[in-house]
């Protein structure tokens, strides 16, 4: 039909033919093409179907602002939807498909939606929630739930792969003195000036080639090459295919580097994309300007694109994009391209909305031989799957009147230029409306940030270069370097002023004129929103979804604002603009997560006996970041059978359990005793050397923070253990107290969690096991080593060891710690002795069963909402001293008798089980928040049935003998239970004392 590749010209390599597939058909392009340019050269016009109406859409631009040619690239688990064909580099073997259409974008059944456009107008979703307009049919019938599914499927963009992402992503960090965003004439000049001043410069460019606007200037080839060479000579670090998508506090920028998206096959050694965090000292934003369209009838037809895009396809990609071209403009910028197209062989007519234009500009057109109509504009594009004619309008007073039509196969539109102020907007600088240039200009920033080139509203190359030099000099000066003085060019730079035209319409003619083609928002949607009372631009945006598509309204926002301003009878600056937020262009979720996926989602901590546990057939579980043994199944055992056997063995003979993950803190110094006495609720002032004590810490507000044992090793040296979960928190807390609150205390705290490996030896035969392991067995005698005693001794073979006689299981037990390097020999030695005594290894499941039987609390109970009295440990709070939380722990409601308190739970029918997380309710009152909740459940081998721990109002005494309901509506249903004392096994603690 019309577009064709020229024999010469452009920056493509005609010697390298690339084969690719479009919608199942084999196509070719050249190295240097984008997917869009290759399709355009093959005269493919319909590349997509629109969001709501399924209207045919083609290429609308040649860059990141693309709203039409959104396609799906890749197949299978590498299927990537909503890719802008205009920025996707072509590679051999690329597979692209049209999206949001069936059977194909060229023949789409759902195009029938276009006939029902009135039902899909602004607010469609909100209205249909209530009923179908105009009579609210079906309102309140729940009908929405039925047709919502169908509508959701019909309206939409591409579909992402549901398979796991097979690609790798990386995070990178870097520093520089000056970050320059954009490598057009301004960016190149800024980078060069800053580098020449002796600064370390990083230049980033979203395109695969440096040059920006130079790339579309046939006469600038040498100038561009020289500028790039100068940058390389000056040592500028350059990153192409890299988008600065956001600017953040302290000159921190976020970059997305597309490493392999342009390669035929994923690289074995490279990530697909890199997410960079750059800490710059100064930022120059030379991000350019984007040309905007004009709202006129059917301005979304394939074959309507920006004037700059037409020029880029001609000059960069060597394509004559149309043979009969109408260039509709409101400003000077489209004339050069019009003349170039004419010289390349197209018949060109220029429509200029202005009635008078400077001769220097008109001469460009005249000399090239284009047709020219002043005071003329496009009224309506004709042609479903490709424009073939354009209805014209002639300027009539402030408005327009219909003025015939003209045949064409390409309409290039320039409605004016919008500086890309997005990045400065990220920094909170609200753009300022410039009426003369009809655009938002970036506001001055008080941060080390300068805008340069057309991003600062400078419209000619010379001015952009000067502006870049000034920006580079600014950066140099701000960072204490000197640079040659340059005089700043002023904004603008056209010979004749722009005529701001946002919409072309004539009275009594119904037109479908698109403001935001990607979300199918038309001028009538904006007016409808106004009629329905939406006057704020923020509301307009949300109601119509204008500017909320993947392009963030890069092409259409200003038209929408202008229409709203017009409807309100206000000026554009009074209506305001919406705030741009990162990212400037879409970022894959994969890049955001980087390598933190799967097993690398968070750090992994293994105890030094990890491998040994595995060798003993241990099954591991996660406890925070730690891998801990869960249970040690013997042949044919299930987890339940295994932990019940382990629990039973500990109660009858002896068991070993890896407890290395407990937090361990060395508390040392002359005031160590005083510190402990202040942070623990119970007295520590008189703890003897060689003794351990169980302690509870509260927060300032009186709630329980953590518990653990602390061992006194000498006058000034304590060994504190914390729970696995709160080890880091307790360490930070002690440091905070010592450094900010009690700065007079002479104490040093050091985390030694990694330095010591620990094993619990629990059960009636635990002493025998240790006697078999220590070098001198007399140290284990009950007199030398009583309950709560601590010894530092040597194991056989000279292994240093510290042991405390403490118990979490309720049996007589010890915890033995050795320097981490001795972990494996320790376990081997202990296991040899334990195995000989019919002992076992036990994991966290049995550990839990043992402690639940005893009513010992852990993190499941100490969830931050529990007081020391709630946990049944009120006796641990000394009435004789003040400690952290002592003033607050009984305030107001925290002193109420009916607070939920720790209790034990039995099923009424002893053969039944129940679930942790169930709500405890009074019989016949299964509703609301109930009376309490269940925190932990286990099978008790000792009692022969299931038991639980939990909290219930007023504690167990008032509930004795009553039936309580463990309500678990979405899982087990309601189970009848009894409330008992939390000390369900050996309440007097005889076994523990041995």
């Amino acid at each position: 039909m019309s577009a064709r590749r020229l024999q010469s010209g452009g920056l493509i390599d005609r010697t390298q033919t690339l084969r690719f597939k479009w919608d199942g058909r084999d196509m070719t392009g050249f190295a240097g093409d984008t997917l869009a340019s290759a399709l355009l050269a093959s005269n493919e016009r319909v590349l997509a179907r629109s969001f709501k109406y399924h209207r045919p859409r083609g290429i609308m631009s040649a860059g990141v602002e693309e709203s039409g040619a959104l396609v799906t690239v890749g197949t299978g688990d590498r299927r990537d939807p909503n890719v802008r064909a205009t920025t996707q580099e072509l590679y051999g073997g690329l597979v692209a498909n049209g999206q949001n259409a069936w059977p194909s974008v060229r023949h789409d059944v759902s195009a029938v939606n276009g006939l029902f456009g009135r039902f899909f107008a602004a607010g469609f979703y909100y209205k249909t929630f209530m009923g179908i307009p105009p009579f609210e049919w079906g309102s309140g019938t729940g009908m929405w739930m039925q047709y919502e599914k169908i509508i959701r499927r019909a309206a939409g963009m591409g579909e992402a792969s549901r398979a796991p992402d097979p690609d790798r992503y990386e995070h990178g960090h870097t520093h520089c003195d000056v970050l320059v965003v954009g490598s057009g004439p301004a960016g190149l000049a800024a980078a060069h000036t800053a580098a020449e001043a002796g600064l370390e410069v990083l230049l980033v460019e979203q395109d695969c080639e440096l040059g920006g606007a130079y790339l579309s200037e046939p006469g600038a080839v040498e100038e561009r090459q020289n500028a790039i060479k100068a940058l390389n000579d000056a040592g500028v670090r350059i990153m192409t295919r890299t988008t600065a998508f956001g600017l953040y506090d302290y000159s921190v920028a976020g970059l997305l580097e597309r490493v392999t998206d342009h390669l035929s096959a994923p690289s074995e050694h490279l990530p697909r994309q890199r997410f960079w965090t750059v800490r710059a000292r100064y930022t120059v934003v030379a991000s350019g300007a984007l040309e905007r369209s004009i709202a006129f009838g059917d301005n979304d037809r394939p074959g309507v694109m920006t004037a700059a895009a037409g020029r880029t396809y001609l000059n960069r990609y060597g394509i004559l994009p149309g043979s009969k071209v109408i260039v509709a403009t409101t400003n000077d910028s489209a004339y050069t391209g019009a003349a170039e197209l004419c010289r390349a062989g197209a018949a060109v007519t220029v429509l200029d909305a202005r009635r008078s234009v400077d001769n220097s500009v008109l001469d460009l057109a005249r000399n090239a031989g284009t047709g020219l109509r002043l005071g003329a504009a496009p009224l309506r594009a004709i042609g479903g799957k490709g424009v073939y004619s354009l209805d014209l309008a002639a300027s009539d007073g402030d408005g327009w009147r219909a003025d015939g039509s003209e045949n064409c196969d390409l309409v290039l539109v320039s409605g004016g230029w919008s500086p890309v102020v997005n990045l400065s907007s990220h920094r909170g600088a609200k753009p300022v409306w410039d009426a003369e240039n009809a655009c938002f200009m970036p506001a001055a920033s008080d941060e080390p940030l300068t805008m340069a080139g057309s991003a600062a509203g400078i419209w000619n190359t010379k001015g952009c270069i000067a502006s870049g030099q000034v920006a580079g000099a600014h950066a140099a000066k701000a960072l204490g370097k000197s640079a040659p003085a340059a005089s700043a060019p002023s904004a603008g730079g056209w010979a004749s002023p722009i005529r701001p035209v946002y919409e072309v319409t004539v009275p009594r003619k119904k037109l479908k004129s698109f403001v935001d083609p990607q979300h199918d928002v038309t001028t009538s949607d904006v007016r409808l929103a106004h009629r329905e009372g939406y006057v704020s631009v923020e509301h307009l945006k949300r109601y119509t979804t204008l500017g909320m598509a993947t392009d963030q309204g890069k092409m259409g926002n200003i038209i929408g604002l202008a229409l709203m301003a017009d409807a309100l009878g206000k000026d554009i600056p009074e209506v305001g603009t919406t705030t741009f937020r990162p990212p400037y262009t879409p970022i894959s979720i994969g890049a955001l997560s980087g390598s933190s996926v799967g097993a690398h989602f968070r750090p992994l901590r293994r105890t030094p006996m990890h491998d040994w546990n595995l060798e003993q057939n241990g099954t591991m579980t996660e406890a925070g970041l730690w891998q801990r043994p869960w249970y040690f199944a013997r042949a044919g055992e299930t987890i339940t059978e295994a932990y019940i056997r382990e629990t039973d063995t500990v109660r009858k003979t002896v068991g070993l359990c890896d407890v290395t993950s407990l937090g361990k803190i060395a508390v040392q110094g002359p005031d160590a005793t005083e510190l402990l006495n202040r942070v623990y609720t119970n007295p520590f002032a008189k703890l003897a050397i060689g003794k351990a004590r169980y302690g509870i810490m509260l927060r300032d507000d009186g709630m329980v923070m953590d518990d653990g044992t602390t061992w006194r090793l000498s006058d000034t040296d304590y060994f504190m253990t914390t729970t696995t979960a709160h080890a880091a928190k307790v360490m930070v807390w002690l440091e905070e107290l010592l450094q900010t609150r009690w700065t007079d205390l002479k104490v040093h705290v050091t985390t030694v969690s990694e330095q010591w490996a620990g094993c619990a030896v629990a059960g009636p035969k635990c002493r025998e096991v240790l006697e078999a392991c220590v070098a001198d067995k007399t140290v284990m005698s009950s007199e030398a080593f009583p309950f709560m005693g601590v010894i530092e001794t040597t194991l056989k073979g000279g292994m240093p060891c510290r042991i405390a006689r403490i118990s979490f299981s309720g049996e007589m037990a010890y915890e033995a710690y050795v320097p981490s390097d001795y972990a494996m020999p320790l376990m081997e030695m202990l296991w040899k002795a334990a195995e000989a005594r019919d002992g076992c290894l036990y994991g966290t499941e049995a550990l839990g069963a043992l402690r639940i039987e005893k009513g010992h609390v852990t993190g499941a109970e100490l969830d931050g909402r529990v007081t020391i009295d709630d946990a049944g440990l009120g006796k641990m709070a000394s009435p004789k001293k003040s400690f952290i939380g002592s003033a607050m722990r009984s305030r107001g409601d925290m002193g109420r008798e009916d607070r939920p308190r720790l209790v034990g739970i039995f099923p009424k029918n002893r053969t039944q089980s129940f679930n942790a997380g169930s709500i405890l309710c009074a019989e016949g009152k299964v509703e609301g928040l109930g009376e309490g909740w269940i925190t932990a459940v286990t099978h008790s081998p000792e009692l022969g049935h299931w038991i639980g721990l939990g909290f219930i109002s007023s504690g167990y005494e008032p509930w004795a003998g009553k039936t309580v309901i463990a309500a678990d509506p979405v899982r087990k249903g309601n189970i009848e239970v009894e409330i008992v004392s939390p000390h369900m096994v050996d309440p007097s603690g005889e076994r523990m004392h041995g």
Partner: protein
Amino acid sequence: MIRIPCPFCGERDHSEFGYGGDGTIVYPALDAPAEEWVEAIFERENICGVQSETWQHVNGCRMWLLIERNTMTHEIQSVRPAHEGVAKALEESK
């Protein structure tokens, strides 16, 4: 990303630090009445402007710092060790 100039480690990302709280609070004595503790713990100013706050360089030197930060702009006006003795020693070592 706020960049915090740690007096011991140099300028670092705020993600290396843990936020403490209001740096102007003088915590009551442990035996002070509950009313004083309520005031210290719960009754906080929501400052729009320069605020004194504590941060800890958790993934660094683990020192607690007293930082003056503008809550509107994230501009950091001053940083010193929260422990007066350490701050004084650091000052003298310069």
